[in-house]
């Protein structure tokens, strides 16, 4: 089931050449389970410019992690399967590559860091060897060169005494340092794109800020484009240039960050913002927010989606049309797209 509005819109955004380094078109990933067909990612398209920081935001289960894994072709098959779409990186469709060719791409052109640094690092290998492995796979065959570069990378990510740390095991490092090591491993071969899947969710708040800063700094220094996947709007506000909001496997809104916060064009996005007191304050609401406004209801089971707009059951602005027809993905403001019949009713800044 393709949304034709989506496809035409993507045509305008180029194909992973020129200014945009990554171009995703109609990515669709299904999971075949006992409970039925789960449409984890349903026709998602976007593109990423060179050195850009794109945030993908949404609650658990909205499909953002599966999107990331699909880009890397790391989705477990069975039960998952990338059903259709294309992922253009440097003029090549990653979804059409053979496995061996894809392995050459992973870690070299596009890398990923994960949420849990402790379990994501091999406990019986030194971090030097693990980072070195990335280098030996793609760039060099000399152990010595790999070691030297590893130490450089450790230094770059801000790990003190890199020459000593190189021979240490993951459990000897603190959580923040492990995450830095993961970042070093991911950026060792200077990929064009870095996918960060909730990199700070498992860390303490103060460390979170450090890691976010580090990613930002490395982005500027190395020119890597970053896809930051998170459920934390605070992180989005601080770092992203552009934001995509996902819900139930689909894109519901997309905009430059300031515009998104100032003028949300989808009720879900607005709901996300007003349920966080800090942000409400940030937006300098004229009228006081007396209570947290929660979004009633729950995310629907992805195997049992309603017809029409997916958010309709929980939406405050819902109408008959919403329940019947899926709203087209349209440009509501300059560079700001959303999929809603009633974006205009959201108004500029209302409680």
């Amino acid at each position, binding site marked *: 089931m393709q949304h034709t509005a989506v496809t035409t819109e993507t045509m305008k955004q180029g194909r992973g050449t020129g200014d945009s380094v990554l171009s995703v078109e109609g990515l669709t990933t299904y999971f075949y389970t*006992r409970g039925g067909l789960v449409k984890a990612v349903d026709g998602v398209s976007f593109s990423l410019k060179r050195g850009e920081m794109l945030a993908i935001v949404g609650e658990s289960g909205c499909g953002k992690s599966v999107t990331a894994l699909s880009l890397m072709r790391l989705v477990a098959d069975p039960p998952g399967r990338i059903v259709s779409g294309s992922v253009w990186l440097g003029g090549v469709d990653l979804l059409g590559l053979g496995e061996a060719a894809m392995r050459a791409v992973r870690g070299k052109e596009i890398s990923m860091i994960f949420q849990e640094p402790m379990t994501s690092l091999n406990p019986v290998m030194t971090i030097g060897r693990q980072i070195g492995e990335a280098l030996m796979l793609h760039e060099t065959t000399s152990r010595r060169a790999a070691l030297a570069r590893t130490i450089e990378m450790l230094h770059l990510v801000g790990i003190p005494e890199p020459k000593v740390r190189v021979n240490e095991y993951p459990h000897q490092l603190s959580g923040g340092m492990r995450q830095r090591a993961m970042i070093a491993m991911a950026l060792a071969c200077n990929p064009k794109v870095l996918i960060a899947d909730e990199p700070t969710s498992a860390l303490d708040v103060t460390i979170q800020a450090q890691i976010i800063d580090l990613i930002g700094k490395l982005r500027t220094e190395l020119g890597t484009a970053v896809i930051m996947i998170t459920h934390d709007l605070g992180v989005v506000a601080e770092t992203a240039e552009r934001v995509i909001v996902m819900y139930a496997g689909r894109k519901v809104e997309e905009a430059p960050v300031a515009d998104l916060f100032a003028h949300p064009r989808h009720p879900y996005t607005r709901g996300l913002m007003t349920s966080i007191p800090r942000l409400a304050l940030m937006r300098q609401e004229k009228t006081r927010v007396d209570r947290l406004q929660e979004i009633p209801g729950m995310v629907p089971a992805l195997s049992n989606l309603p017809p029409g707009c997916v958010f309709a059951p929980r939406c405050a602005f819902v109408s008959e049309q919403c329940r019947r027809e899926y709203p087209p993905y349209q440009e509501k403001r300059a560079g700001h797209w959303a999929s809603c019949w009633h974006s205009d009713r959201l108004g500029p800044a209302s409680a």
Partner: protein
Amino acid sequence: MAVIDHDAQLSRAGANVRGPLGSLVFFVRRYPLGAAGALIMLAFVGVAVFADFIATHDPLTTNARASLARPGGENVLGADFMGRDVLARIIYGARISLIVGIGATALGCVIGMAIGLLSGFFGGWFDLLVQRLMDIMQSLPLLVMALVMAASLGPSLTNTIVAIAIPLVPTVARTIRSNTLALREMPFVEAARAVGMSETRIAVQHVLPNTLAPLIVLATAQLGSAILVESALAFLGLGVPEPHPSWGRMLSESAAEYVRTAPWLVIFPGVAISAVVFGTNLLGDAIRDLLDPRQRF
């Protein structure tokens, strides 16, 4: 991108399963080995229960004329040196293996579960003591312990069951205990406490049902071990005594002497034992895969 047949994929994952018959078919297709094991077990139990109706000969009647008869004709699987029909002895031997096997496993599991549950749930010095005891008991190989117990208790059907059940207890107790420890900390137990439920009621109503799944998996594995140990004891002359026909004893009576002259005495009882244990193992594996939450998707 290749065209994908969604319905086929979904059927493979079991999404279109309807009703108990559908579930059964799904189980058979997904776990063919387990289904085979279940079939073997059913046959085993069937033979044991309906032995009187299936056997053509009496297993205990001796018949000098039929001594060491070859398979075929009157004695389908041959006869031993006393003229007793091999097939009949195998059929009735199933009964003994079933009684001892299930008896010992059930006894061992019940005792082990009780100990594990109490130990894990209430902790304290009881737990410490019991843990040490279980450790010690587990240090001895199963057969050795069963041998010693069988020898000291004396030969009888009940004693054999006990002799095999006791060594099975530590493994069960240990598994149930670690399971209980994990469950004890779970939120739903805390919630029950907060509502004011007594510890005993929590143990019985909340924790116990959740230990049943691993217990079932363990029990099927233990059943196989129990049957093997029973036949080993019988082979060594320390198992169920005469006149109960036991597969293990059939093999010991026929040992090295008849290997050359009467191979059927060696082959058939062994096949029986192997088949049954094989069935329990297959079934146990399938049940474990089935109940393992991580396997479900």
